[in-house]
């Protein structure tokens, strides 16, 4: 399924639960959607860098199984952006459902 435009929101949602590294974020999105939301993992990092530039996430060095990893965590402004995205998404999904006669 096409994720265009929604990837940053999904990333923020994963990071709101716990700080993670890129691979974990990608797997979490795929698992949470039962594999329905599939995306090319190489595009995850530009999205993370954009969120970092906007101040929605911050990165830090961590280790996993003795291996250095770059972890990301959500910031206060990231939580605000996520709440805003959630509200917008509910509005859009309600509107589309109404038009399609699903609601």
């Amino acid at each position: 399924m096409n994720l265009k435009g929604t990837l940053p929101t999904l990333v923020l949602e994963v990071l709101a639960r716990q700080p993670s590294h890129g691979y974990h974020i990608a797997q979490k999105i795929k698992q949470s959607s039962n594999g329905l939301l599939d995306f090319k993992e190489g595009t995850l990092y530009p999205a993370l860098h954009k969120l970092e530039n906007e101040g929605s996430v911050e990165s830090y060095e961590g280790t996993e199984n003795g291996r250095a990893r770059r972890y990301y965590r959500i910031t206060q402004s990231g939580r605000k952006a996520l709440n805003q995205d959630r509200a917008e998404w509910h509005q859009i999904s309600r509107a589309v459902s109404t038009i399609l006669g699903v609601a």
Partner: protein
Amino acid sequence: MTNLDGWLHQAVRSLSKDSADTVRREIQEHYDAAREAALNNGIDPRTAEHMAVQALGDPCVANSQDRNVLLTSSEAAVLKQSNTESRMICANNWVKWMMLSTPGTLLLLSAIFLAAHQFALSRGMLVFGALMAIFFMPPFLPIYTVSRGRIYRAIKWIVLIGGVFVLFGMDSRNGLWLALCCFFPGFFTEWKRMMMRRKLPMSKWPKQLYL
């Protein structure tokens, strides 16, 4: 060259050295984790490597998205070059004093020519004095905050466009084209700075992005 090397080679094209290092490191970590997970699921090493690279997708798409959020090599070159110019002005005392005194001298000459009814000369001196002041004095001005930087940039563009109108009068449209052609490197630098201001968070702006 492994599959991953080929992928990375395309994914870091045109990125600055630091940006390319960041991308390489993150993708390598991602690849290692994906390969390890596949191996733990009993997949043979060659297929695991192939799957890990396949999951990354098209390197050209990743590269195009990275170039929108990370510094490119040409932007890094602009930063480096501007740093060198700035250092050259600030490091040499005589250059520094010349840069500080020339705009004032030109503006004074403009006033003298105006008093002598030499309007064309007065206009020329006024424009060159204002341009020199706007371009060479920033290292000595306290403009390195977000709001002051914005004010400085607004004044800079007003002086630039206003200067063309003062110099060329009714023929300003051709004058703007002439200025654009003659000072193309300057406009190119401005364009690159604008792109960098959009990409980098304000907390990471080097001094020259305030200009």
